[in-house]
């Protein structure tokens, strides 16, 4: 099977672009901003300012392109590796950073943003997207829900239950699988004996679409179709976006143990941002001064978010008892008193 592709690696276009030049420039800027966030996080982790970080470098087109096809009130449930997608749907960089600093306020996006905190348990959140979209249709709304997950997540039993529910109840759900080649050390071939993950869709009675996940335009196109079907009441779609995690699994991972530098280099040559730059250059939508300036302001925006996140004081010790229930229970009150009496530990 050939993945759907609209932009060749050299930036030439096959067919019509799904968005105009202005929008392409906006999405290019978003991808550059996301990458600036990613490299800032890697640097901060090394400095001890962030806990473990999971880089999404190389997956910017899959994340920005798919979100570009959503309405800004649609639901998104995603993973620890999907900060670019979450941000583009309205989550704040500062919140994402706070989460990585180890602060629960990182899990709270602005009121009007329908994005759940990132799922860290692999596979559990896909069925949540089913419930979210289902609730919208039960309430007469045409909001849809999109779940982002990796190739490894398709091995969990919950994947089956999510796909099955979505098919049976024809829920407005988009399943976006970023097949980035590996689940920690395990190559995709070790997750399923199927040739493509899209093969699974047929078993659940929904369309499965294979797409070049490093192609911004193709990502917009296939997600738009899936979103259109969902919004029209025609049910779920499974998308397999072929992409690659250029960095290690997380900052604690040593990727040299399980994959070659050559493979990484091969994928770097298919970089999703370079591809759009080449397209913009061919279309007369790019000049060096423009990119220098946008890269500068992207870094500025990320620095601002870092300052905002780092200026948030840690919670008071007793705050851990305030988050568990709408109103603290008597046990919470007793335990808060005990913590006050004995102090927290070092």
């Amino acid at each position, binding site marked *: 099977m050939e993945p759907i592709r609209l932009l060749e690696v050299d930036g030439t276009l096959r067919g019509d672009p799904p968005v105009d030049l202005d929008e392409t420039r906006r999405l290019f800027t978003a991808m550059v901003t996301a990458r600036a966030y990613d490299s800032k996080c890697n640097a901060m982790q090394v400095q001890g300012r962030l806990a*473990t970080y999971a880089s999404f470098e190389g997956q910017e087109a899959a994340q920005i392109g798919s979100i570009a096809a959503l309405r800004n009130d649609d639901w998104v449930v995603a993973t620890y590796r999907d900060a670019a997608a979450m941000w583009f749907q309205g989550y704040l960089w500062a919140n994402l950073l706070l989460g990585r600093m180890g602060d629960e306020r990182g899990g709270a996006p602005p009121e009007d943003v329908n994005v759940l905190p990132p799922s*860290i348990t692999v596979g559990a959140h896909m069925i949540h997207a089913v419930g979210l979209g289902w609730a919208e249709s039960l309430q007469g709304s045409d909001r849809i829900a999109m779940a982002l997950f990796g190739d490894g997540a398709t091995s969990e039993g919950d994947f089956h239950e999510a796909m099955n529910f979505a098919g049976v109840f024809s829920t407005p759900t988009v399943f976006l699988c970023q097949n980035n080649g590996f689940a920690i*050390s395990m190559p995709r071939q070790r997750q399923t004996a199927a040739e493509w993950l899209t093969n699974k869709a047929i078993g659940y009675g929904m369309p499965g679409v294979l797409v070049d996940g490093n192609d911004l335009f193709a990502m917009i196109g296939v997600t738009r179709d899936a979103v259109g079907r969902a919004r029209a009441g025609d049910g779920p779609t499974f998308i397999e976006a072929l992409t690659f995690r250029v960095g290690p699994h997380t900052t604690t991972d040593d990727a040299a143990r399980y994959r070659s530098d050559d493979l990484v280099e091969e994928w770097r040559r298919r970089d999703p941002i370079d591809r759009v730059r080449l397209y913009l250059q061919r279309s007369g939508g790019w000049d060096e001064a423009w990119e220098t300036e946008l890269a500068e302001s992207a870094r500025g925006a990320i620095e601002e978010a870092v300052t905002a996140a780092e200026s948030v004081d840690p919670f008071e010790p007793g705050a851990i008892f305030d988050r*568990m229930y709408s109103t603290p229970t008597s046990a919470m009150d007793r335990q808060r008193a005990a*913590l006050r009496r*004995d102090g927290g*530990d070092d």
Partner: protein
Amino acid sequence: MTELNLAQAINSALDLALANDQRVVLLGEDIGVTGGVFRVTDGLYQRYGGDRVIDAPVAESGIVGAAFGMAIAGIRPIVEIQFLGFAYPAYDQIVSHVGRIRNRSNHRFSAPLVIRIPYGGGIGAAEHHSESSEAIFAHTPGIKVVVPSTPYDAKGMLLAAIADPDPVVFLEPIRLYRAVKQDVPDDEYLVPLGVATTVREGTDVSLFSYGSMVRESRRAAEALSGEGVSVEVIDLRSLAPLDEEAIVAAARRTGRAVVVTESPRTAGMASEVAAVVQERALYSLLAPVERVTGWDTVVPLKRTEHHHVPGLKRISAAVRRVMEA
């Protein structure tokens, strides 16, 4: 003898088990090529091959369910779950099948498998990576639950777990994986399951704990000796079965009991130990039993985790209270 840390001691036990018993296989996520996320299985895939050190898909229920079937049919599987917070998808297999097959088949079938799971907090990890829900497993009939706190015990207890005819959940304190080194015999030896051990003698108070809380309890005991309080520290090592005789004997000896766990307080192991003391040593007690535990909250993230996981301050405060009572 070789000086090993806890992770290396477990590796050494797995190595011996694989070498000495062809029925032993390892099954888990990223345990092969890359040696496990904590490198506990480092080198074993290279030594024994992918048919015996098996990299599994990301599917905890599948891993435990398959291991259960293997165990019934004559294989001796040793499962690794990456973190305790990721064992929950497998819980149905454990509670509904692994812990029950001997009973429901009236001994016709049994499932001698070991489920190794890193657990516990105190290292500022991401959410779900610091769980201490051992009580859930101790509460599950038909399985044994053990927790080593030293390299020597880790190797001997793991070999005992592998030899055990029943399923064992083997919890490994993440915080202690590389904390200390100890001389560990190179050959096979067994540390029997179900037996607590006294790791520090004392006459005024008995501190009961396990896993990484043993180290915190010892710290507190040392500090309190400066205040003239003689504290005994008992490493329970086995949560199911619990060594009731050791608990009762200690409580009768000192008359004061403090139980330290990092798990949530309600219905936790500290409550169980307190109940045993109350049932069998009440009239020897000079003070109410104190529980020093994590709170009934999820483990807070890095910035405030230290308000949750007990350490020197909270343990010492509890000991002073039982001394003053």
